[in-house]
């Protein structure tokens, strides 16, 4: 007995000694020297027992698919739906918290925000078995071309690879929002792409057959129509709960509804408008109002004097002409909430648009007409296009109807989602002319600042707004490293954006989705799959379970 205890002790000591001797860094061992910023990053939840994937989850997406959404290097649009399937990020929003460790097990930022350091988990690999190292993290950073890429490039001084698991990013100046933007939801740059594979197959090859370190392996796709994925059992956090996931782009609401009722689909998004009542009444379906973000209207080119929307009174008239309570009733069966901000209240530093911090915009048709007359349009005017988010065309026609009642007449440009996303991702440049209204929504976890940076400042990659008053505040915001001051400035900008009607908020969208009885646990509310704060889609996908 004594010999056995001694032998076990010797083996453990030797093992630890070997590990120590190899210099394997422990999770908590510091990387940077000097004072550090306080980061609140939650630990990953790693399953102790690896289960066996069972069954197939069939998802009905409410718009067509774009192969570009498989490539994190060119991030735009609703690509995170697919990133959470195929790829993995160093840190990303998860049910545990907005910042949750994923591929990284440790992160630091210097107190002056000029350095960021990450340590990867040991033994990480891509789905082809190739090890995932800091070289891939560096390559991804250097080759990223999606949202905010210029900011990332401009701020970067150099990237220091300490070892295969430790990397330090050196910035030329304080980069206070780095973690906010590098976090999985802020952009595509934090999602690590296999450099060896990407270089071999090229950009188009990668879009055709993506590969990453996520819980599901890409199997096949029919461009624009559907994509199939299978569980990757060696995913570091846990084995996925379902064996396969099929995502189909089904723009037609009736077809999604029929898919749910016939069992062709197990989960369908965007159950709204004419058939929402049917979803709510169907005893077999479970549904959940996942409040994502507020719908809002933007006016590309409004700041050109020839635009009718150049006049604040016209933009105000647009807001006043929309009967939000009736719209919410008709479109969402009263589940949605008229809202006074264009950013979700679940985003950090966002002003609530329910009347507590920003007023709910009123409906006043007479005042709208009066403002139009004052602006020089006593008989109203025609504008070129109203561009809705696909496939919410009925909602768009309801809004067009309200605008027409006030005298603002137009027609609807019906784009499919990939085309719409591609155009809106360019901001004002995506819409020629200056007589167009674009209906938008951008649900994503994170801070309000990320949305302001993207859409509401002159240099934003998808910017619709360029105002000296906002630029001055934003410059102050960028120069400051005081969190309280930055929050105050971000809120002030939000207030100006709404008060000046540069953006017209509509209502907080209940992104109602429905699942069939095949989804487990039976009879349970489905919100457990939607625990990540402000997540537009029910990630992480590895936790989904269905009947085999």
């Amino acid at each position, binding site marked *: 007995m004594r010999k056995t205890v001694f032998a076990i002790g010797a083996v453990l000591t030797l093992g630890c000694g070997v590990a120590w001797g190899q210099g394997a860094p422990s999770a908590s061992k510091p990387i940077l020297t000097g004072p550090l910023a306080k980061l609140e990053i939650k630990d990953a939840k790693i399953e102790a027992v690896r289960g066996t994937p069972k069954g197939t989850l069939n998802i009905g997406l409410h718009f067509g698919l774009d192969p570009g959404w498989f490539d994190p290097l060119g991030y735009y649009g609703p690509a995170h739906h697919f990133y959470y399937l195929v790829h993995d990020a160093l840190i990303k929003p998860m049910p545990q918290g907005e910042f949750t460790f994923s591929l990284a097990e440790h992160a630091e930022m210097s107190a002056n925000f000029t350095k960021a350091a990450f340590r990867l988990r040991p033994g990480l690999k891509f789905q082809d078995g190739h090890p995932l190292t800091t070289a891939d993290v560096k390559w991804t950073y250097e080759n990223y071309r999606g949202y905010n890429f210029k900011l990332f490039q401009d701020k970067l001084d150099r990237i220091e690879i300490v070892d295969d698991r430790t990397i330090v990013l050196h910035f030329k100046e304080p980069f206070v929002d780095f973690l906010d933007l590098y976090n999985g939801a802020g952009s595509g740059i934090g999602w690590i792409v296999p450099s060896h594979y990407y270089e071999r197959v090229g950009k188009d090859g990668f879009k055709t057959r993506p590969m990453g370190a996520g819980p599901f392996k890409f199997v096949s796709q029919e461009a624009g129509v559907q994509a199939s994925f299978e569980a990757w059992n060696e995913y570091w956090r846990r084995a996925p709960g379902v064996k396969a996931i099929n995502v189909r782009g089904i723009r037609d609401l009736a077809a999604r509804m029929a898919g749910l009722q016939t069992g062709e689909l197990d989960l369908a998004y965007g159950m709204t408008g004419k058939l929402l009542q049917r979803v709510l009444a169907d005893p077999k379906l479970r549904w959940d109002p996942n409040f994502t973000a507020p719908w809002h209207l933007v006016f590309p080119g409004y700041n050109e004097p020839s635009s009718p929307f150049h006049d604040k009174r016209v933009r105000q008239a647009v807001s006043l002409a929309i009967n939000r309570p009736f719209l919410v009733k008709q479109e969402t069966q009263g589940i949605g909430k008229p809202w006074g901000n264009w950013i979700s209240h679940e985003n950090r530093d966002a002003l609530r648009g329910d009347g507590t911090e920003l007023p709910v915009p009123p409906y006043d048709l007479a005042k709208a007409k009066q403002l139009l007359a004052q602006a020089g349009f006593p008989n109203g005017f025609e504008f070129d296009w109203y561009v809705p988010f696909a496939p919410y065309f009925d909602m768009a026609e309801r809004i067009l109807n309200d605008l027409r009642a006030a005298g603002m007449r137009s027609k609807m*440009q*019906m784009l499919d989602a990939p085309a719409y996303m591609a155009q809106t991702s360019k901001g004002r440049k995506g819409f020629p002319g200056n007589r167009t209204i674009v209906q938008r929504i951008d649900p994503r976890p994170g801070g309000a600042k990320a949305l302001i940076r993207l859409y509401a400042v002159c240099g934003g990659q998808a910017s619709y707004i360029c105002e000296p008053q906002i630029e001055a505040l934003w410059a102050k915001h960028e120069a400051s490293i005081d969190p309280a001051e930055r929050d105050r400035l971000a809120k002030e900008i939000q207030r100006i954006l709404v008060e000046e009607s540069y953006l017209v908020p509509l209502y907080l969208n209940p992104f109602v989705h429905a699942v069939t009885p095949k989804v487990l646990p039976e009879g349970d509310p489905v919100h457990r799959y939607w625990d990540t704060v402000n997540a537009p889609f029910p990630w992480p996908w590895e936790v989904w379970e269905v009947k085999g």
Partner: protein
Amino acid sequence: MATIPIGAGPTITAQRVARRRYRVFFRNAPIVPLLIVTVLALVAVLAPVIAPHGKLDPVKPTQDRCLAKYGTADCPYVDNVPPFWAHGGTLDTPLGTDFLGRDVLSRLMYGASISLVVALTGTLFAGAIGTVLGVLAGYMGKWWDQIIMRITDAWLTLPSLVFAILLSSVRGPGLWNVVLILALVFWSRYSRAVRAEVLAIREREFVKLAEINGIGKLTIIWRHIIPNVMNTVMVLFSLQVGVAVIIEASLSFLGVGVPPPEPSWGLMMAQERESLMEGRWWLAVFPGACITMLVLSANMLGDWLRVRLDPQLRNR
């Protein structure tokens, strides 16, 4: 011996000849399709006058209707009112209202003008392009014929609806874009048929005589060729109108045709797909029935016209 004075016999007046020709031409005419097309054409032209409500604006609801539907006395519109014969229907909106409280009958009336304008002008432009190219290829021959016909052959291999969708995604939605698309899709059918006709006509004596007399080619085309291919063009035109109506409806149904809120029949059907699931059949069935009636009538008229204008078929 009896003599018959000159001028005393039965005389055939020009009026009688015209009447006889008219009777012969319209013998066996398809009365019902003719009636349908005439009524639809009249409705299309007179829609702004005879439509009970506007094409875009919702029907103003009464307080009672608002109360019954939404539980409030004031509402901007009452949606999905059924036809007058169904429970809850009203004669004010005989065919009911759509999801925006707009009168279905009025929108169908305005939709007739959109369908007819798009189909007729699109087919007309296609006919003009195709006829000119067909005549040039057939009469000028040589490299004119080679180039025009190879392009025509290539064009004919393109599936019309897919090609129309492709063009539409390039041009964007819009009423006049649909007209342009129809012209670009259908010209090749005219050009192929017209060229075949011209090849026969150019060998006829009157054309040869004109050439011997030194009359210019353009004059021969204008004075002798084109009048003789017009029968073929007219028959093709009448047969293509039905197809054009379907293409326009399909493009609008797919969201690349006439943009909302204009009341195109195809678009009206597309917008009410969900309503079918909810049992509101009238919203999709009425525009569908209009499309069917118009296409069927146009095809039957085209067929009849083909028989009437073809001497071989006419004398059988």
